[in-house]
C-alpha cells in the first residue's frame, strides 16, 4: 500500500484493510479464490447490460412498440437483483476473503468488519477495531471442529499517523492469528 488514507474515515479504513488482506495472505502462501467475486461481477454486469438494452430500446423506439420487451427486461432485472441480494446475504454472508493453501491442504475463509469502538469503555475510546473472523477448513477432513477464531485488531497498531498501512505488521499479525488457530485445532 503506497497511498496514505484518511484514518478518520471508517469506510476508507475498512476498504484499505479489506484490500490489503489478499495481498498479505498471498505472502503466507494462500491463493485467493475469486469464485464469489466473479459470480457477483457476472450478476452485476448482466444487470447493467439489461438496463443498457432497456435504455437503448427506450431511446430508439416508442413506448408502445417495445412494451413487451421492456416488461421482460424489467422482470429479468428484478429477478437478478433478488438473486444478487440473496447471494450477498445468505451465501457470501460478509465473506471478505476465501483462499486455499495447497501445501497444507487448508482452506481459509475470512469475514471482516470494522467496529467504531465507542461503545466499549476502555482507554482507546475513539479507535476503531478491525474484527477478523478466521475459519480454517481442512480440505481432506471438513467435519473437524474448533476451526474458528475471532480476533480484534486496533487499527492504530497497523496504521501510521500519516495514514500508511504498515504491511509488515499486518503480515505478522495475520500469521500469528492463523498459527494460533492451527494450535487451537490441534488441541
Amino acid at each position, binding site marked *: 500500500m503506497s497511498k496514505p488514507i484518511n484514518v478518520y474515515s471508517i*469506510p476508507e479504513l475498512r476498504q484499505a484493510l479489506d*484490500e490489503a488482506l489478499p495481498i498479505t495472505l498471498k505472502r503466507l502462501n494462500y491463493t485467493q479464490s*475469486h469464485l464469489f*467475486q*466473479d459470480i*457477483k*461481477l457476472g450478476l*452485476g*454486469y448482466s*444487470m*447493467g447490460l*439489461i*438496463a*443498457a438494452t*432497456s*435504455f437503448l430500446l*427506450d431511446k430508439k423506439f416508442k*413506448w408502445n412498440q417495445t*412494451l413487451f420487451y*421492456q*416488461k421482460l*427486461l*424489467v422482470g429479468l*432485472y*428484478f429477478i437478478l*437483483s433478488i438473486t444478487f441480494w440473496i447471494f450477498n446475504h445468505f451465501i457470501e454472508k460478509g465473506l471478505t476473503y476465501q483462499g486455499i493453501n495447497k501445501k497444507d491442504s487448508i482452506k481459509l475463509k475470512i469475514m471482516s468488519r470494522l467496529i467504531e469502538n465507542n461503545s466499549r469503555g476502555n482507554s482507546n475510546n475513539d479507535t476503531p477495531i478491525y474484527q477478523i473472523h478466521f475459519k480454517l477448513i481442512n480440505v481432506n477432513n471438513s467435519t473437524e471442529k474448533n476451526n474458528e477464531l475471532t480476533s480484534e485488531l486496533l487499527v492504530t497498531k497497523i496504521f501510521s499517523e500519516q495514514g500508511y498501512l504498515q504491511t509488515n505488521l499486518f503480515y505478522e499479525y495475520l500469521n500469528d492469528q492463523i498459527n494460533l488457530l492451527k494450535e487451537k485445532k490441534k488441541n
Partner: protein
Amino acid sequence: MNLRLELTKLLNLCFVLSSTFMMWKGLSIFANSHSPIVVVLSGSMEPAFQRGDILFLWNRNVESKVGDIVVYEVEGKPIPIVHRVLREHHSEKTNKQFLLTKGDNNAGNDIPLYANRKVYLQKDKDIVGTVKGYFPLLGYVTIWVTENKYAKFALLGFLGLSSLLGDE
C-alpha cells in the same frame, strides 16, 4: 492493477445508474404510462397546478371520468398537456371513449389544440395518464434540465441514489 477490484468499483456506479433507470421503467410499466411522473410547465391549470409542480400519473383505468385531470399528447407537439376532462362519450360495446378537455384557467376548450382538426381525444390513443397525486414545486429541480428528455427521472434517480448509498 487489480482488474477485479477495478471492476467491482465500477460496478457500484453501474448499479446506481441501472437501478435508477430500471426503477423508472418499472414504475412506467406499473402505471402503464410512459411518463408516470411529470412536471407541470404551463399555467393553464392554475391555481390547481403551477409551473414546477410534480404530478403522479396512473393509466390502468379503461375509462376517464368527467372532472379527471388527464395528461395527453398531441401529434407533432413535444410537450404533453395537462388538462381537465370536460365531457366524455363512451360506448359499452366497443370500449372506445371520446374526451373533450379544457384547462381550468383557459377560457375555451381544447379543440384548437387537437391535431388533424379533430374535435375529440381518444382515451386509448391520446391519453398518457390520469393525475392521481400531487407534490408542489419540487419539479423546479428538474425544470432546468427539462429540455432534456430524461430529466423526468432525474428526480427518481436522486431518490434511487440516496437509497442505494444509504446503507453503506
